[in-house]
C-alpha cells in the first residue's frame, strides 16, 4: 500500500473516534450527574427492550431493557436535527449562522497534532499515528483552540441579545486570562523536553518509561494545565460564558436545533482535545508500562498488538480527563466573575512564572 494511504489511518482514527465518542460522553455526563445527585439518570432508551431503536423500527426485542439509557443520545440527536431551526429576526444573520461552525471546528483541528498511538513501521520507516506532525507542535493547539473563543463571542454578539452578548464577552475575557496561564504552564513543559512537538515529547517520555511521564517531572505545570483546561473548555467551575443561572444560556441563548447541537458538540470535542493534550504532555501520551517489551518482539502480530494497546492506553487517559471534568462539574459550584479573574491573574500566572524559573534552574545542562 502506498505510504500516503497509510496517512488515512490516523485521520480516520481521530475523526471517527472523536465524533463517535461524543454521544457516549453526553450519556456519561447525564449518568454521572444523576448518580452524584443520587438519581437514576437516563435509563429508558436502551440497546434492547422497550423504547430501544430496534423496537421503534418494529423489531420485537423482549420486555427487559438492556443498557437502558445508552441510546438516549441517539434520540437526542434525532430530536435536535428534526427540530425547527429558528433564526430570530433581530440577529446578524451571517455571523449567527457562522458561529456554531467556528465553535465546532477548532477543537477538531487542534486534535490534528496529537499522536493517538504508537508509531507504525512502514517500509522500514517510522510513521507516527498523528494527523499532522507539524513543527510548531502544541503551539498549533494553543493557536487553534483560542479561535473557538471566536465562535462563542461571535455567537453571543450576533444574537443581538443582552444575555448572549454578556456570555460572549465573558468568554473572551476568560479566554485571555486563562490562555496566558495555559501557555506559561506549557512553556515549562517545552523547556523540560526542549521541544514543542507532541511526537517528540511523547518519544522522550516513552524512553523514560513509566517514571518518564511528564506529570512526574512537571507536577506544577500539570496542575496549572488542568485548571486552565477547565477554563479553556468553559466547563464548571469556570462556565461563566454559559452560566444558565444568571445568563439564561449565555452565548447560545438564541440558538436552537442543530446549531445549538453544534455548540454542544464543540464543547465535548474540546474536552476530548484537552484530555488528549493532557495525556500527551503529562501522562506519556499513548505509552503504557510494558510497551518496550512488546514492541521489541520480532513477531509482527505482537507489534500490532502493541500498537492497538497504545491506542487503548491513549483513549483511557483521554477519557480519564473527560470523566474527571464531569466529576468536577457536579462537585464544585461556579466561580464568581471577579474570583475567576483573581484566580487567573493573581494565582495561576505567578505560579506559572515561578514554575518556569524553577524548570530553568533544574534543567541546566
Amino acid at each position: 500500500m502506498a505510504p500516503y494511504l497509510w496517512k488515512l489511518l490516523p485521520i480516520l482514527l481521530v475523526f471517527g473516534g472523536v465524533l463517535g465518542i461524543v454521544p457516549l460522553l453526553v450519556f456519561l455526563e447525564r449518568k454521572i450527574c444523576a448518580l452524584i445527585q443520587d438519581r437514576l439518570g437516563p435509563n429508558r432508551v436502551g440497546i434492547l427492550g422497550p423504547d430501544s431503536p430496534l423496537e421503534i423500527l418494529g423489531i420485537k426485542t423482549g420486555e427487559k431493557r438492556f443498557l437502558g439509557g445508552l441510546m438516549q443520545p441517539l434520540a437526542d440527536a434525532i430530536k435536535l436535527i428534526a427540530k425547527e431551526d429558528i433564526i430570530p429576526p433581530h440577529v446578524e444573520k451571517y455571523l449567527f449562522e457562522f458561529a456554531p461552525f467556528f465553535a465546532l471546528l477548532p477543537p477538531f483541528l487542534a486534535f490534528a497534532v496529537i499522536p493517538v498511538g504508537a508509531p507504525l513501521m512502514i517500509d522500514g520507516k517510522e510513521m507516527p499515528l498523528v494527523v499532522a506532525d507539524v513543527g510548531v507542535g502544541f503551539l498549533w493547539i494553543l493557536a487553534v483552540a483560542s479561535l473557538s473563543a471566536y465562535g462563542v463571542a461571535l455567537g453571543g454578539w450576533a444574537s443581538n441579545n443582552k444575555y448572549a452578548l454578556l456570555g460572549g464577552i465573558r468568554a473572551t475575557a476568560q479566554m485571555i486570562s486563562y490562555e496566558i496561564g495555559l501557555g506559561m504552564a506549557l512553556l515549562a513543559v517545552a523547556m523540560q523536553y526542549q521541544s514543542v512537538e507532541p511526537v517528540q515529547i511523547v518519544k522522550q517520555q516513552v524512553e523514560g518509561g513509566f517514571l518518564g511521564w511528564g506529570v512526574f517531572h512537571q507536577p506544577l505545570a500539570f496542575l496549572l494545565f488542568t485548571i486552565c483546561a477547565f477554563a479553556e473548555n468553559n466547563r464548571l467551575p469556570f462556565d461563566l460564558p454559559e452560566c444558565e443561572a444568571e445568563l439564561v444560556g449565555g452565548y447560545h441563548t438564541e440558538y436552537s436545533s442543530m446549531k445549538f447541537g453544534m455548540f454542544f458538540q464543540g464543547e465535548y470535542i474540546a474536552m476530548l482535545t484537552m484530555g488528549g493534550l493532557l495525556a500527551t504532555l503529562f501522562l506519556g501520551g499513548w505509552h503504557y508500562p510494558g510497551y518496550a517489551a512488546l514492541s521489541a518482539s520480532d513477531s509482527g502480530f505482537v507489534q500490532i498488538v502493541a500498537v492497538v494497546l497504545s491506542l487503548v492506553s491513549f483513549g483511557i487517559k483521554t477519557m480519564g480527563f473527560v470523566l474527571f471534568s464531569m466529576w468536577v462539574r457536579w462537585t464544585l459550584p461556579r466561580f464568581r466573575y471577579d474570583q475567576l479573574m483573581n484566580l487567573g491573574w493573581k494565582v495561576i500566572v505567578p505560579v506559572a512564572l515561578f514554575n518556569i524559573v524553577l524548570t530553568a534552574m533544574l534543567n541546566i545542562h
Partner: protein
Amino acid sequence: MAGGHGHDSHGHAETATATPPIPEGAFLAPGNTEMTWVEKLYLPEIMKGLGNTFTHLFHKTFTVDYDGTQRDDPRKFHIPREGYRGEHYLKKDEAGHVKCVACFMCAAACPAECIHIEAEAVPADWQDRERYPKRFEIDLLRCIYCGMCEEACPVDAIALSTTYNVVADQREAKVYNREKLLHRGEELGISLTKHHYRPDGIPGHVPEKKAGGH
C-alpha cells in the same frame, strides 16, 4: 467554595466598601468563618468535595425506576396513604345497579362545577328509589380533587380512589362518563364498600374489600 465571606474581606481589604471585620465572639454560621490558609489553597477542599461526590456514585438512589408496572413493590410504585383523594369512581349496589339516586347533592357541592348529571325515572323493576342518573359525567380536567362530592353523597355512591396516575392523550378522555366511572370502581375491586347504606338509612351488606386500597 467554602467560606466565600472570608475570601471577600481579604480581596477588598483596601477599598472603602470593605466588609467590617468579624467581631470577637460573634455568632458565625457554619462555613461563614475566616478561612484558614489551607482552605485558601482551595485544592484540599476541592479534594474533600470530590471525595464526597465520589461516595455518592455508590449511594442508593432516591428516585426509582418507575415504569408503572411494578405495583406490588412500594419502592417502585408509590402507594398513597388511605384517604388520598385520586380518581373518582361510582359504586354499585347488590343488584348490580348504580347506587347513585341522582339527587344532585354532589353537583351542588362541587366547587369546580365539574359534575354533570341528568336524572331519569328508574325502570319499573327497581324498587328502592325513584330516580337514577341517565348521564353522569365528571370532568377531571376541572376537578380539584377536594372530595366534597364524596362527603355530600347521601347514599355513598361516589368516592375517590387512591389512583393518582390519571393520564390521557386526549382531553375528551379525561371526561369520565357513568360507565367509565362504574368500570373504574369494578377494576379497583372496590365497587362495594363497607358503608353500604340503603336509601332508607338501614346499613346493608359489608364486603371484605377495604375501601381505597390496592
